Every structure is written in C-alpha cells, then in structure tokens.
C-alpha cells in the first residue's frame, strides 16, 4: 500500500504520477472517482498521467490511444494491450494505491 497525496491535493479532473517501478498514474475523475493504472502506455513510451481525462477514459498524449480506467482495456488503437489497474483507497484523507502484483514477467 503506497501513500500518494492528500485527497484535497488531487482536484477533480486531475491526475498524478507515482514513482513506483513501474510508475503508476492515479486519476480523480470529474465525478470524484479515484482510479489507478500503470502510467506507461502499452503502445510505446508515454506517460498516461499526462494524458487527456474524459469521464472514465484517458487519452495517451503521444498517439491518442484511449484506455478505460475501470478495466485498463484500450478502447481504440494504436494500443492493443491493456494497462494493469490498481486498487485505490482513501485513509485518513490520504489516497493510497494497492499495487496489483506483477504477473510472471519472464523477460
């Protein structure tokens, strides 16, 4: 469980990058929902926390692939693989990310 920042420091419609390995992006949607996904786009090499947030979708700032924050699935090309999603909780006013265990990454 990794503390991110105080809830009030992440306004609605904004995102923040957490420097874990690999880095994670935490989003607070316009509706106030919190989501966390792997920050690096599965297409090439861009940071999704710097993307365009619209509802539950984030658009990659490099080639405009879009990911659903709820599932991590890409909703359009050029990305074809999902990003991992992570559970988010708020404890004592602080946002926490619970990292999903890395799957067998036999490289």
């Amino acid at each position, binding site marked *: 469980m990794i503390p991110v920042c105080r809830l009030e420091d992440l306004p609605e419609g904004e995102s923040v990058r957490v420097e874990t390995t690999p880095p994670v992006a935490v989003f607070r949607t316009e509706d106030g929902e919190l989501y966390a996904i792997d920050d690096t786009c599965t297409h*090439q090499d*861009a940071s999704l926390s710097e*993307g365009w947030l619209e509802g539950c979708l984030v658009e990659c700032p490099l080639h405009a692939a879009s990911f659903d924050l709820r599932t991590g699935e890409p909703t359009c090309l050029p990305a074809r693989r999902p990003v991992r999603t992570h559970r988010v909780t708020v404890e004592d006013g602080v946002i926490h990310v619970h990292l999903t265990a890395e799957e067998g990454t036999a490289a």
Partner: protein
Amino acid sequence: MRTVTIVGASLSGLYAARELRAQGFDGRLVIVGEEPHLPYDRPPLSKNFLSGRTDEDQLALTDADETAGLDAEWLLGVRARGLDTRGRTVVLDDGRTVSTDGVVLATGAAARRLPGGSLAGVHTLRTLDDARALRADLGLGARQVVVIGGGFIGAETASSCAGLGHAVTVVEAAPLPLVPQLGADMAAVCAALHRRRGVELITGTGVAGLRGTATVTGVDLTDGRTLPADIVIVGIGATPNTSWLVGSTLALHDGVLCDDGCATALPQVVAVGDVARVGGSRAEHWTSATEQPRVAVTNLLAGRTLQRVRTVPYFWSDQYGSRIQFAGRHRDGDTVHLTEGEITDDGPGESGFLAHYERGGRTVAVLGVDQPRAFLRARRELQRQVREQAVPAVL
C-alpha cells in the same frame, strides 16, 4: 465492390484494411507489399530499435488474431509494377495480375540516396532491413559515424548512435536544420540539442562525395574538408513511391494527386499516407497515415467524396532524451510566443517549453519540447478551431 486491392502493406495500408472491414466491406481483400514482412511500425527504427531498447517483435503493427479477422490475401515480397489505365488491374513484378474493383494506393516513400555506387558502411534508414543492417554495423565497436542530413530522421539517428557511445558528426547543407518544419527560431533551439550531447553539427556545407573503395572511409565536404567515417547514414529525405504508377492515368506530382477526401480522378482509386498528396499537401507523418484511411475508405466505398480530411497535422520526434511535438501549419513571418517553460542559450530549459506560432492574432501551430500535457491541450484547441471552421455556414 467485390474486390479491393491495397498496394503497400505498411501503416496506412493496414489501417485501410481495418477500415474496409470496419465499414462493412465483406468482399475479397488483397494486400500487396514489396517487403517480405507483415506491417511493422517505422518510428521506433531510428529511436528505441536502434538504441536496442525495442526488439523486432515489438515493432509488429498487427497479430495473428487480427490478421485472421481481416480475412485478406497477403501477397508479400512482391512489388506492384503497374495499374491499368482505368485502375481495374494491378500488375505485379512476377507477372501475376490482380483484377479489382477498388484500389487503395499506400506505397509510402523511399529514402533518398546519394548518387554514385554503394560502399559498405553506408546506410539509409527507412525499412526494417535498413535498421537491421545499421544496428549490426553499430554493434561492431566504437565507430566514427557521419550522419548526412539534420532532419528528424538524421537527428534521431545521430542521437541513438551517440547514446551507443559512437563519435557522431551531423552534416547539414542548409544553414540550420529543421527550418522548413519548425521555422528559423525554433529550429535553432532544437539544433542546440546536438551540441549539448557532444554531437558535432556542421551546417551550410554540402557533401561532395564519399571516400573508400569497398568500405567507406570518409566524407568529402564541399568546403574542402574530409571527415573520417566508418559508418555513414544518409538521411536526406524521402521520395513518394509513385514510379510504378507512371503510365496509368493518375496525376502524379510529388505524390499521387488527390482531392481533400483522398480520392484520385478515378473514383475507384484512393491514396493514403506518405504517397498521397491530399488537397495540395503531402505529409510524411505517422498520424496522417493512420487518420486518412478512414476518410479514404468511406469515399472509396461510396464512389465519390463524401468526407474530407479535416485534421491538424501532427508529428513527434525523440532526440537526446527530449520529446519534440509539433501540430499545425506554420509559415515564414509567424510570430512565436513562449507560453510554458523556458529557452536558454543552450537550448530548451530543464523542463522543456511550449511555443505558439501566431498569424493575424490566431494560433496556427504549437511546438512542445518535454511538455506533453500542455502540448496536448494546445493541440486539442487547434483541432477544435479547425472543426468549427469546417461546420458549413447556416444560411
């Protein structure tokens, strides 16, 4: 339409195939490609592929599931040699012919070469095979590399070679590289990236010739100097692959001439990507090659131009650890305003910058260096303007 043939099996050809199926074309789909490979992505070739951070399998643009779903006949490793006068037959180099009702021209562009014979150690960088050969040469130990041409591909290649520990010199004939793309002021800022990383940039000097008998040993400059070299990379631009269409009725002039809906004078022939001159301009950008096929396929299936390409040109480039992004169209005389970050004598400041190009009080283009978030906002704003202009006036 019962048969559609796509000529060119790369980025824009693949996107055209996807669009044909997505838009309901259920006839015979033939894809002809000169390269033996299934579609792969070119931008990483000069970036992470050359530096070894990306492998070949990561370049693939499609996978077995998708190719099965597309249900196409792939004729790979064979070049199209001609298109009959009315665009109904594609003639292949091996003598085969494909009778077709519709044609998508997606033959892209080819790297321009220096005149003269070929010497070992001299490379261009357009295809996977080019990149494999260059990567192998760079793997032989520390070398003297001369890059001819300081455009995006030249700069990215120089950056990747320097990152691998080679001694690199870039030769640019113009007084400054990237002026056509960025305008003089911003081109000067980006040129500073080379020097900052210890890459020598020689400008205002052309190349008189290459030295060496079997293998290259040096580059003769027009100012009389000779640069020693074991590897020479020629990055002097690309020419659209239209020679195979000479003799067809299509109008060719720096690309296949199309209306702003990617349609040629023959309603059953459309062109997309680097080979297409759409509504008077030709782009060599990844995003154009992925956006044009949707419009082109709609118009092809309709038999007339129903839709126009209404996007803002966009490209990116990765050099020396910096990400450069540009959107819009600029002209000489535009004024450039810095809106984020800073520029120092030594190039982009620590956190990059965002610059707006203005003409007549309106933003016409934006350039970002390491400012993806601010750039994305500015780019979307430009797109919004273009879309609003596209709305027909209500009378």
